[in-house]
Every structure is written in C-alpha cells, then in structure tokens.
C-alpha cells in the first residue's frame, strides 16, 4: 500500500512496520522560537526574583548556565522527548529506531545546536535539514535522533447505521479503505463538498450529489458490518 505522506517505516522485530512522520524545518523553527521565549521569560523572572548585588548576580549566572544548556536536555529525557515548544507544535524527539531518547543522545544533539547555528541563525542546520531525507540537522545526525510528529490517538467513530448495499463490482482493499475513510471524516466536510465528492463517484454509484453519498454509505455499511 503506497501512501503519499512522507512517513518513515521502521520494521520491528515482530515483522510489522512502525510509521513515523519526520517534521520539517518550519515547525521545528517555530518550536525553537517558542522555547527561546519561554527561556527568556523564565530568566527575566529569575532576574527580578534574585536579590540585587553580587550574590544575586552570581546565582543568576549559574541559573542562566543550567537553564540554557539543561532545559532542552531535561525535557527530552524526562518528559517524553518534548520540550514546551515541541509540545505546542506536536513534535517529539525519538531515536532513529523509534525508541525514546537517552542522556547521551539528548546531550549530544543539544550541544551541537551551536554547530547548527554557524555561520548565522541556524543556516547550517537548515541546509542540513533540507538535504536529508529525514529532516535531520547536524546535531540529529551526530546523536542518531529524528524529530517526528507526535501521533495523537484518533477517536474511533461508532459504526455506520445504514442499510447495507452491495456495490456494483467488487472493490479491493485500497478502495474499501478510501470509502471508509470518507465517512470517518464526514463531520469535518461541508455538505457541498460531500455532494461534489458524490458527483465524482458517479461511475461507482450511478447517481450524483447527495444520493451518491447515501449509496456509498450503504456500501461502506455493507463491508464493515
């Protein structure tokens, strides 16, 4: 089954495929921006909280060091590979084999952020991401990680309550899947669009518009129930 989405399939020891969708540079850049703002805000707050004078300044610098280098690493190791920015964008850092990242991978990929930053504003990282199939920047290649979309659990629709109808000719698995998919996302499609799709499916149902949609609903009820 060939799907046009850019998914990476990894074969597990049980012989099935894990599907991971690597995330592109734009989303990662937005996630980074969000993380940067979170860090700056936290630091500004610390600056206000710490007492003025040399002791406060020293503590502030120590806090700056640990938050600057430590925040992404701690988030990735302890919070499922997702910093706040990545959480907002629905991204996740995993190892190349799909398993959660460990200390070594997380530390290496975050230390090499500096290398990705050269010569300016993450240009090296961007070029590397565009040249690599899995959208990995230099830090990801060195550490053996990829940034993927976090799979949300899809809500399973209740079964179709329609009278089963036999299709005019047998449909193969791919085609059955496509029809079933239509009725799963039915709620997010406007009625005009559904009617339009029904008209496109005229060779299958022999009808147009909403009648065609009802016929297809009958077919789907027929092969799922």
């Amino acid at each position, binding site marked *: *089954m060939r799907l046009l989405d850019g998914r990476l399939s990894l074969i597990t020891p049980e012989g099935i495929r894990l599907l991971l969708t690597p995330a592109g540079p734009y989303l990662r850049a937005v996630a980074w921006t969000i993380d940067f703002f979170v860090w700056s805000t936290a630091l500004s707050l610390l600056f206000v909280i710490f007492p003025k004078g040399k002791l406060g*300044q020293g503590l502030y*610098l120590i806090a700056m060091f640990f938050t600057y280098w430590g925040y992404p690493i701690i988030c990735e190791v302890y919070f499922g590979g997702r910093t706040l920015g990545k959480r907002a964008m629905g991204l996740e850092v995993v190892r190349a084999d*799909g398993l959660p990242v460990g200390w070594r991978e997380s530390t290496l990929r975050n230390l090499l952020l500096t290398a990705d930053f*050269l010569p300016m504003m993450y240009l090296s990282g961007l070029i590397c991401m565009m040249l690599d199939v899995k959208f990995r920047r230099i830090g990801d290649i060195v550490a053996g990680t990829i940034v993927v979309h976090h799979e949300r659990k899809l809500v399973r629709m209740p079964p179709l309550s329609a009278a089963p109808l036999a299709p005019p000719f047998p449909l193969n698995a791919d085609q059955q899947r496509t029809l079933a998919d239509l009725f799963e996302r039915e709620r997010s499609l406007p009625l005009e669009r559904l009617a339009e799709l029904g008209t496109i499916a005229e060779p299958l149902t022999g009808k147009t518009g909403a009648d065609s949609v009802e016929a297809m609903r009958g077919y789907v009820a027929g092969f799922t129930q």
Partner: protein
Amino acid sequence: MKQHQFEADNAALWQEIGAILDGSQADRRALPVLYRRLCQCLALCRQRGYSPAVADYLQTMVGDCHRLLYGNAVQRPTTLLRWMLVDFPCRVRAEWRLLLVAMLALFGVALGIGVLVWHDPQLAYSFMTPEELAQVRQMYQPSNIKVGRGSSEGDVMMFGHYVWNNISIGFRSFAGGIFGGIPALLSLAFNGMHMGVIAAWLSKDAATRETFWSFVITHSSFEVVGLVLASMAGMKLGLALIHPGRLGRGHAVHAASEKMFPVIVGAALMIFLAAFFEAFWSASTTIPVHIKYTVGGLGWALVLAFFVFAGRGRQ
C-alpha cells in the same frame, strides 16, 4: 471477515493491552504474547483494507507497546562513576595524537607568543587593545585582587561568571569542531594567544607577577586541560567527517560522538571544578602564596597522573 466482526472479536485483546499500557493493570508479564497477537491484528487490518481509524488506533497501540518493551534501559547505579574513572581517561589516551595536536595549538601558540612579548613588550599591542592590557594589569595589582571583587559575595558572582563563561566556551569549541576541526583549533589558538600575551605582559612587571602566577596556578590545571579535551573531542568529530574510514560519513560521526561523549562530559566537569577553585580559592588573600603554589603543583600532578594511569587494565 468484516470490519465490525473483526473489531468485536478482538475487542477484549485490545482492552487488555490498553489496560497494561495506561498502568491500570499491574501485572505486565502477559504483554509479549499479547503484543504478538496485536501485531497480527495490525497486519490483517492493513491487508484487508479496514478503515484508517482502526488501522491508526492499532498502529498507535503497537508503537506504545514497542516503546514499553524495548525502550527501558537497565539502570546501573555505578555506571556514572565507572564511566568517569575508567572510560574517560581510556578514551582520552586512545586519541593521544589528536590530544598532542590540540596541546600544540594551545600551549605552542601560548609559549611562542609569550616569548615574543617577553622580548618585545610592544608586540602585546598587536594582539590586544591597550585598554584591555591596562585593565588586566589593574586587576592583578596586589591591592586590587580581592578588593575588586568585594568579599565572598563577589566570589559567588565570579563563580557564576566562570561557570557560565568557561563551560560555554568548552561546549562551543566542542560543537564547532565538527566542521573539520577548524573552529576548535581556532578557539584553542585564540585562547593560547590570549594566555601567552597576558602571562608575558604581567610577568614583566614585578608587582603583578606574583599575584598573577599564584592566581592561575591552581585552577589552570583543570581549566586549560578541560578546554583542550573539549576541543579535542570536537576535532575527533570533525576528523570523522573528513576521513570516515570504512563507514558512511553520518555513521562515522555518530560512532565518533559515542566515543567522545565521556570526554566532553569529563571536560565540562573539570572546567566546573576549575571555576570552583578560581572563584573561592585562587583570589583569596588569606592563603599564603607558597601554599597556593604547592596546591597548584599538586593539581597539575593529579591531572597528569589521572590521564596517564587511571583506568588502565580495567577496560
């Protein structure tokens, strides 16, 4: 088999696995067997073309089970200590040629420029601005060294400054090294030049000579060696990129990073220790100078002995 029938038949299985995954079922020993059946369900689902919702539901469950089964590393509490005491010096010794190059870049440049500035102090102005040199001389005046900081609060501030500044330089040298090792070498050369100029400049003046050398002797062993090691680790990555040997470039860099990971962490720890010494010990005026020299000498001896002897025969 119709989808509805398929879902009805396997609902109990999916529910059981769901219970194990979200923790409501404490006994997880049945998971491997259940997982294999789940994989079979997923394969059938895909082959028979059931709706994407069911397929995605099963796919997500399979992903979670895979992580649960294969994703947990065994916790070994002594690993960190063994790693630092055995792996770290062994990996450093394995890369002794790169270490030599890095030391040459730092100490060679420092010595060379230091000797030049010693013979002709005017040369110092071609490396650093007059304001910087005057400021350095001012900082190391015997009366200023402690007053300039202002008691123990100033020590904490300098500790924070050294932690932020020096360890970040170490990390950046490491990261920069991936580009063929050139940025790391440049960083070493620049720091060496800085060290050489300041050392020669302050040694020329009898007033600052004593304060300067007693100040640097203790922490320099950890800090300078830490910087050299961090740059060396970066250079190893860069070398793996240029000369990957029998592996592809990506794999070569990944393998080099695995080897050099203890080195960069060890280097960071050393620079942290140096910051501690530099902040709280080196500038103290209550400790007599000969004690500082003794401790400093011991520090260097310790560092050298550690990298030459530690971890031998235990790999």
